């Protein structure tokens, strides 16, 4: 994946470039808003990581300008401002996701992947499949190997989100934000408990587990029986 990183903190940028390159992406770095905008116009990137506060040109105005010019590449906003308000402003300006500093690299890559997948997959069908697991969005029905699985409404939303991001790492905060719409952070790991309940329903009675825990990052719904690589 070709990624544009617009970040003025060179040390943080170097670390990000290294981390993303190691996970197989090609990253280009711009140190200020003007340069970032020029590069985004000149080249086609699969996704962009743009810092909120940049010298010469503010990150939000870069995004607005790109969106105005019809550039719809997914954008992840990085910001030191941790506030629901700030988040909303960022998303309104045309960003696709918002990540507050300090962040974990695993969180960033997971979100980035979710963004590009969303951008590429386009309209999804009303029935989702992962291996022998199917989820019917219209009938609100989940089956595995033809067997009916009863899920609570929230468990259904959780599974739906995981299935929409099949093969990707999904972090706990992504789940909290997208499934529960909570922009706060419970200390006890409520998500782990929810996942383990879901797992007991979809995986317990079957040979090959689908829902995997990715150490230090989150979870992944995938058909392959071998557990996902650890970060």
């Amino acid at each position: 994946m070709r990624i544009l990183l617009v970040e003025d903190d060179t040390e943080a940028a170097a670390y990000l470039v290294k981390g993303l390159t190691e996970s197989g992406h090609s990253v280009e770095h711009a140190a200020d808003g003007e340069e970032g905008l020029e590069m985004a116009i000149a080249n086609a990137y699969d996704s962009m990581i743009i810092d909120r506060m940049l010298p010469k040109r503010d990150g939000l105005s870069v995004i607005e300008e790109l969106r105005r010019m019809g550039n719809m590449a997914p954008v992840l906003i990085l910001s030191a401002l941790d506030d629901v308000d700030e988040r909303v402003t960022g998303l309104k300006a045309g960003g696709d996701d918002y990540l507050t500093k300090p962040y974990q690299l695993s969180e960033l890559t997971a979100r980035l992947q979710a963004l590009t997948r969303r951008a590429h997959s386009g309209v999804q069908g009303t029935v989702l499949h992962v291996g022998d697991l199917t989820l019917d969005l219209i009938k609100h029905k989940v089956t595995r190997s033809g067997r009916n699985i009863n899920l609570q409404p929230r468990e259904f939303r959780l599974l739906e989100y995981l299935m929409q991001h099949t093969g990707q790492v999904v972090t706990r905060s992504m789940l909290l934000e997208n499934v529960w719409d909570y922009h706060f952070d419970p200390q006890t790991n409520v998500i782990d408990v929810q996942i383990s309940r879901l797992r007991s329903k979809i995986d317990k009675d079957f040979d090959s587990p689908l829902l995997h825990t990715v150490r230090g990052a989150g979870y992944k719904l995938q058909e392959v029986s071998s557990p996902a690589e650890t970060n």
Partner: protein
Amino acid sequence: MLQQKLADTSVQRPVPTEQPSKDRQSRQYPGWLRRLDRRRLFRTSAFRLALIYATLFSALSAATLGFIYWSTRDQIESQVDARLRLETDYLINLYKSGALPELLEAIQRRNQIDTYGRFYYLANNESDDKAADKPADALPLKLKSVRTHTTRNMGDVADLPPGSPRAFNPVRVAETQLSDGLKLTIGHEISDEQALLDHTFALVVGATGMTLLFSLIGGLWIGTSVLRRIDSVSRTASEIMSGDLSQRLRVTDRDDEFDEISTKLNQMLNRIEDLMKSMQQVTNNVAHDLRSPLTRLRNRLEVTLLEERDPEIYRSVMDEAIGDADSLIHTFNAMLSIARLEAGIDSSQWTETRIGDLAGELAELYEAVAEEQGELTFYTDIQSNPVFHCNRHLIGQALTNLLDNAIKYTPHNGVVCLSVSGNSDAFSVSVSDNGQGIPEAERERVFERFVRLENERNSPGNGLGLSLVQAVVRLHSARLTMEDNDTGNPDNPGLKVTLHFTRKAAVDKRNRSRKALTA
């Protein structure tokens, strides 16, 4: 003279500088004035008010006294005029009856006898011959049409014909034209009345002057005493500004407006001092609570690097280091959130939230956690679904913190309960457990930042959870109460934390902050 003397001394100084001229200026005034800066005194609002008051009051009293003076004078004049008229009428009647000689005789007689020296009569004939030629019978008719009754003050004897007694006295004169050239002039001496009026006038002027003078002195006095109180306030304020926050303004027994202001300022200073102390406390706590994990982190990495180790060990040490860093970040985020909430930053994210629904969702999450992690029974008692204008994320965070605590501090097989009751106007949300509770004496303290009670030192947490709850509660103008959950069980009383919300308080606060924003 004093000035002269001082001027001399300043001339005698070998090196005249700027200083002496200032000295001279201040030494020109008597003691009580010298202590104050005169220009400041005249600028005080007290002096200005006194001056305005003095002017107004003097003008008013001058007007009142003036009115009394003028009406007295009118009264005296009209009395004198009445007597003049009476006398004139009598003499004219004599004349009208056709007896000019009788009239003259009557005047003669009257001038000879002593009429208290008050009346002077004079039938002034400019040309006696002419008058004598006139037929007597024609006179009454003519007199009627010609008769003019004028009065005028005659302040000088010179205006009177010679031969009049009592010269050099003010006289009021009535003149009546009897016929062509024949004029009846009756004078009335008014020296006593005039003396009375003069005296009254002097009184008016004197009283007005005295009022003005005393008002000015009063104004100066009030001005200086106000300045003295203000000076004391500003002296104390300077001392406080220079760093001594323990100073307080002096409050007298008079209980006047200065005392009121001083009391208010003292209360403000108390609050500021409390805030400063708590900030100091927080800074110390931050230093302590962040320094220990940072030291731990550093030591762990340092010790690991002392010798060559297996890659597995490096990996596990780094995992632990990441965990330490995460908990530090978590603490930082919590501190920032609390600081932001305490600053009362109004969020546009406030929406009408159904509290019962929110509590239901959280209950769903925590029921699972309670069962699987703490082997606890989780009850929900959501009796209503009030609608409240709030920041849903913050209320969620607050309830989450309370639920986290309840699950963390309740032993296995315990019971945790989340309940909602009340309507949209006033409702309460409470989280209760049957753990060991919090002793009454500690209940204030647990809301302070980084405070952790003895028995929880070893459990995970940063001591910020309840501080955040408190901050959220304050932001929503709600009230928090903490009580024993099971009063019948002194060993394990449990804890019940209730948040009381009212719509009115929240709306009032919103309006206030809006006003503050527009102001």
